[in-house]
C-alpha cells in the first residue's frame, strides 16, 4: 500500500477559543477503509472537514502524496436538495463539473443502481425513507468515482436494521470502485466491522491516541462478525476508547 495523504501536526481552534484538534498526525493509505473513532466532540468531524478543504487548519499541513484527488463527502444527514428528484440530486456533482443531464445520465443511473435505487430516480426526497435518502446521498458522493470518500457519522441517525444493511452495501460498492474511505463514527462495532484500520481519538483537543489494525478482507459479509479478528478489534477499540475518555478499561 502507498500513502494517499499525510496529516502532519494538524491543529484547529475556533474563534471562541475552543481547541478542536491539536497536533494530529495520521497517514491515510491508498485504498484503505479507515475509521476515526472517538467520543462526541473530539474533533473527528473537524479533521474530516480539514481534509475536504472546507476549512483551513491553524497549524500543521495536509500533504497529498500525488496531488489532491476528487473527494466525495457524506454528512450525518442525507443533505439532499428537497426540490430536486433523486436523479437530479445525484447529477449535482457532474452538473457542477459542466455535464448536461444527457451526458451525465449513464453515470447517474449507474450510481443509483449501485445503491439499489434506480427505480426511484424520479422520486423526491420527501417521498423516500431515511435509509433511502442516505443511499441517494452515497450515490451522489460516488457518482464522480472519487478516489477518496469522507463520511461523517453517516448512519448515526438510522435504525439498527437499516444501518447494518447500509454497512454491507457501502462495503460492496466501494470495494468494487477501490475507493479510499475515511469514516467518522462513535460506534466500536461499526468501526470494527467496516475498517482495515481504526484511529482512536482522545477528547478535546482531539488527537490520535491509538491505531488498531483489523485483519480481514476489504469486502466483508455478515460472517465476519463471527471471526476472532472482529472480536479482537472490538476489544482493542473498546479499551482504547475508555482510555481516551480517561476511564479504566
Amino acid at each position, binding site marked *: 500500500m502507498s500513502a494517499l495523504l499525510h496529516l502532519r501536526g494538524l491543529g484547529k481552534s475556533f474563534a471562541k477559543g475552543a481547541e478542536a484538534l491539536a497536533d494530529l498526525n495520521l497517514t491515510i493509505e491508498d485504498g484503505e477503509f479507515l475509521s476515526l473513532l472517538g467520543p462526541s466532540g473530539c474533533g473527528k468531524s473537524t479533521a474530516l472537514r480539514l481534509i475536504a478543504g*472546507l476549512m483551513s487548519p491553524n497549524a500543521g499541513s495536509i500533504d497529498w502524496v500525488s496531488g489532491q484527488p476528487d473527494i466525495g*463527502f457524506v*454528512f450525518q444527514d442525507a*443533505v439532499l*436538495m428537497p*426540490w430536486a428528484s433523486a436523479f437530479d440530486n445525484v447529477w449535482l456533482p457532474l452538473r457542477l463539473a459542466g455535464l448536461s443531464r444527457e451526458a451525465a445520465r449513464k453515470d447517474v443511473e449507474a450510481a443509483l443502481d449501485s445503491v439499489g435505487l434506480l427505480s426511484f430516480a424520479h422520486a423526491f426526497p420527501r417521498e423516500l425513507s431515511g435509509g433511502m435518502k442516505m443511499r441517494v446521498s452515497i450515490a451522489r458522493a460516488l457518482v464522480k468515482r472519487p478516489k477518496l470518500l469522507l463520511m461523517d457519522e453517516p448512519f448515526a441517525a438510522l435504525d439498527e436494521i437499516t444501518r447494518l444493511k447500509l454497512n454491507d452495501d457501502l462495503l460492496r460498492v466501494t470495494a468494487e470502485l477501490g475507493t479510499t474511505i475515511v469514516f467518522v463514527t462513535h460506534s466500536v462495532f461499526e468501526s470494527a466491522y467496516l475498517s482495515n484500520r481504526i484511529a482512536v481519538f482522545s477528547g478535546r483537543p482531539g488527537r490520535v491516541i491509538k491505531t488498531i489494525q483489523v485483519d480481514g478482507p476489504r469486502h466483508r459479509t455478515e460472517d465476519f462478525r463471527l471471526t476472532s479478528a472482529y472480536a479482537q478489534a472490538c476489544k482493542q477499540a473498546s479499551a482504547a476508547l475508555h482510555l481516551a475518555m480517561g476511564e479504566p478499561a
Partner: protein
Amino acid sequence: MKRLTDWLLPLLVFLAALGLWEVLVRVNEIPHYVLPAPSLVGRTLIEDWGILSTALWVTLTITFQALLAAVIGGVGLAILFSTSRVVERSFFPFAVILQVTPIVAIAPLLLVYLEPRQAVLICAFLVAFFPILSNMALGLASTDHHLIDLFQLYKASRWKQLILLRLPAALPYFLGGLRIAGGLALIGAIVAEIAAGSAGQGAGLAFRILEAGFRLNIPRMFAALVLISLAGILIYVLFTMLSWALLSRWHDSARERGL
C-alpha cells in the same frame, strides 16, 4: 360528503347573511342612500359596469405594475444583501424606514413631486417591496449550510451556487412574501388613490368611491367596494395557486393534509 360540506356550508352561510341584509333593508324600509340592499348593489354593479370596470382596470394595472417592480427590486436587493454584509448593513435601515412610515403619510408628499398616477404607483410599490425583500433575504440566508459545504467541495462558482442552490431554497419564503405583497400592493394603490383624489380617465376604484360619496350615490360605493374585495381575493387566490403549483411536489407547506 365531507368535501360537499367543505364548500357548501360556507356558501350557504354567506347567502344567508346576504338574505338577512336584504330582508332587514326591506322590512325596515331603509332608504338606499343610507344602506342599499344587496340586490340594488348587484344591479348597480351591472348598470355602472362601464365606469366601474374602467376604474377596476386602472387599479389592477397599478397594483400589478407596483408588484412587478417590488419583485424585481426586492429580490435584486435581497441577492445583493446576501453577497455582502457591508451592503446589507448600509442599506437595510432605508428599507426599514420606508416600511415603518405609514403610506398615507408619505402619499401627500409624493403628490407634491410627482404626477398622481406615478405617486400612486410608488406608494403601492413601497408597501409591497418590504415583505418581498425581507422574506427573500431570510430565504437566502436559510439555505442548508451542509448543502453550501457540498457546493464548495465541488468548487461551484458563486453564480451556480445562487442559481442551483440559494434561489430554489429561498423560493418558499419568496412565495410567502409575494402573497403578502400582493394584498398590500392593492391596499397601497387604494390608499394612495384616495390621497391623490385624481379624477378623469386615470381614475381608479378608490376615486370612484370618493366621487360616489360626494354625490351620495351609496349603492355605487358599495359596488366599488365589492370590486375591491373581489380584486383582493383574486390576487390572493392567484398567488396561492402559483405557490401550490411550484411547491406541491417538494415543500412541506404545500403538503396535502391528512396524508
